[in-house]
């Protein structure tokens, strides 16, 4: 598939989605109920106008759904789009400032399903959606759910279509290219990512071969010896913002022999790039393009 055709397909798909979404809107009636990742029914009587997001990727998704102006509060780590920095900082979902949240009188609070925040916010009479996308397919599920909750199904369908189009576009460019082997380092322990994880899936789509096998789970702690034996052609340092650099990697015992180190293909991500890679949100296309450029510098 050549890029022009891919764009045309995307445009066609987008047009189709608009039609479908309009049909959806005609049927959308309040109250709306969606099921969250804790399996709870979240019911809203009317489109929420005062949203608190305690998850950075949800903050980005809400804004991508054209509802940035309905956000009234955010967690400490939500920093994109830049404008959300002006919203009140409510701590993290794991230790939220409950008083400040209640004082904002939100009609929807978005939290991490593992934070326990839902257990305290619901008894306070707040509507809470608990769930975070952990994998690429879950991103699209989340976009759909948030779209319905926010009363923005059209925007959600358009966003999903745009994201699929962006992913397809990058995939089309790297199709048929030789797949370099990759080691993606989350922190210097070293933790890495499994092929089924969000980042692992992106590595596959970007035309790379993750050296971490599937059976280790999504965020395995890797034996450094294993990395040396796997001899990856590219090493991506998502921990570069925390002080790890190519020189430090080369100085690790035995790592000097790794192809990526010898060929100078140890890539240091910036803080912003690292955030884009780790947040399953509307910047997924940007994340995939970034990876594809790292893996196939000649193709772009």
């Amino acid at each position: 598939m050549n890029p022009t055709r891919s764009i045309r397909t995307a445009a066609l798909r987008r047009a189709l989605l608009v039609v479908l979404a309009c049909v959806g809107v005609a049927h959308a009636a309040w109250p709306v109920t969606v099921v969250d990742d804790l399996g709870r029914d979240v019911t809203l009587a009317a489109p929420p106008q005062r949203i608190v997001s305690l998850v950075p990727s949800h903050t980005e998704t809400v804004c991508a759904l054209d509802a940035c102006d309905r956000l009234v509060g955010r967690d400490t780590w939500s920093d994109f789009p830049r404008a959300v920095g002006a919203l009140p900082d409510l701590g993290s979902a794991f230790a939220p400032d409950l008083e400040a949240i209640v004082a904002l009188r939100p009609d929807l609070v978005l939290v991490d399903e593992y934070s326990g925040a839902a257990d305290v916010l619901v008894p306070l009479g707040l509507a809470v959606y608990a769930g975070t996308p952990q994998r690429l397919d879950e991103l699209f599920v989340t976009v759909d759910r948030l779209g319905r909750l926010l009363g923005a199904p059209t925007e959600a369908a358009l966003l999903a279509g745009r994201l699929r189009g962006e992913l397809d576009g990058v995939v089309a460019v790297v199709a048929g290219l030789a797949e370099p082997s990759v080691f993606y380092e989350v922190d210097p322990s070293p933790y890495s990512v499994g092929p089924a994880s969000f980042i692992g899936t992106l590595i596959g789509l970007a035309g790379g071969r993750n050296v971490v096998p599937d059976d280790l789970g999504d965020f395995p702690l890797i034996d450094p010896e294993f990395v040396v034996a796997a001899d990856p052609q590219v090493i991506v340092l998502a921990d570069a913002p925390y002080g790890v650099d190519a020189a430090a990697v080369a100085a690790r015992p035995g790592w000097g022999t790794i192809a990526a180190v010898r060929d100078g293909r140890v890539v240091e991500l910036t803080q912003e790039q690292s955030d884009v890679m780790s947040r399953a949100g509307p910047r997924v296309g940007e994340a995939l393009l970034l990876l594809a450029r790292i893996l196939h510098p000649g193709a772009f």
Partner: protein
Amino acid sequence: MGRRRLATPLLASIGALALLLVVAAGVGSVRIPAGEVLAAVGRGVWGGVAGARIAPEAEATRVIDTIVWQIRLPRVALAALVGAALGLAGAGFQGVFRNPLADPYLLGAASGAGFAASLAIVSGGAFGLGALGVPLAAFVGAAATVALVVALARRGWSLPIVPLVLAGVVVGSCLAAGTSFVLLAAREQAAGVLTWLLGSLAFASWARVGTLLPPVLVAGAVLVAAARSLDVLQLGERAAAQLGLRVEGLKLTVVAAGTLATAAAVSVAGVIGFVGLLVPHAVRLALGPDHRRLVPLSAVWGAGFMVLADLVARTVIAPAELPVGVVTALVGAPFFLLLLRRRVAP
């Protein structure tokens, strides 16, 4: 000891605690004038007395009522109860082991609770028990660990102290390793597990206060009743036995009551260090080693110390929160050293 010598410091301490509770309920990240806080308390109490909750007409009033009644008051009450439980357990354990380094977690209660709680958090649905799953797992984990340690250390019907403490340390280390493994294996939920392990009162509720109250009252009653026997025990096990004290029965009773209080506290607030170690020492340094004073006052001072520590934890870097266990150590250690200096000074 005359009755007055217990009553005066106890009443003074309870009075100071009551004042502290009022102040703590008045302070939070949202600034609410003292008058409005008192009015909200009044509305709630009047609603309770009248049997019907008065629905405030203005939305701002409703927000203040929610903050005061559903966030601050349960949190302050929970802090007080957790502190009381740990103070009681610390006084009991230091008394029964006749060791100033003993604390409520000596027999592995913290490690057992931490391991069970981390498993419950990682299993996602908390074993399918919802919001109750993690506290229940922590309670059972703590109690079962101490029971295992006692079973490993006992010689027939007697409970020798040195094997008991050693078994506690070894079993505790083993379970702590298990918790580390769970943390490494389930990275996605690591933040949730760590927050729990560091101890937090952020998720306080009246339901948690309600579950903590009965075990703390029972443990408190048992330990206060055992106070005189603990005084006799300080003469040494053999001397105490010659004076007619049933030493083994006392040891088992105090360990059981201390563990009940510790397990209950840990189950609702996670592992909060230093309180159980420090508070009984502070009481002892200030008022002497008599257990009839030491045990009840450790409960009251523990409650006050915990309320104060939590107040610091939730205000100094608001909207973020310090783990309260960090505050208990940071505030507690210098205060303790100060008391110690005053005591040894001529």
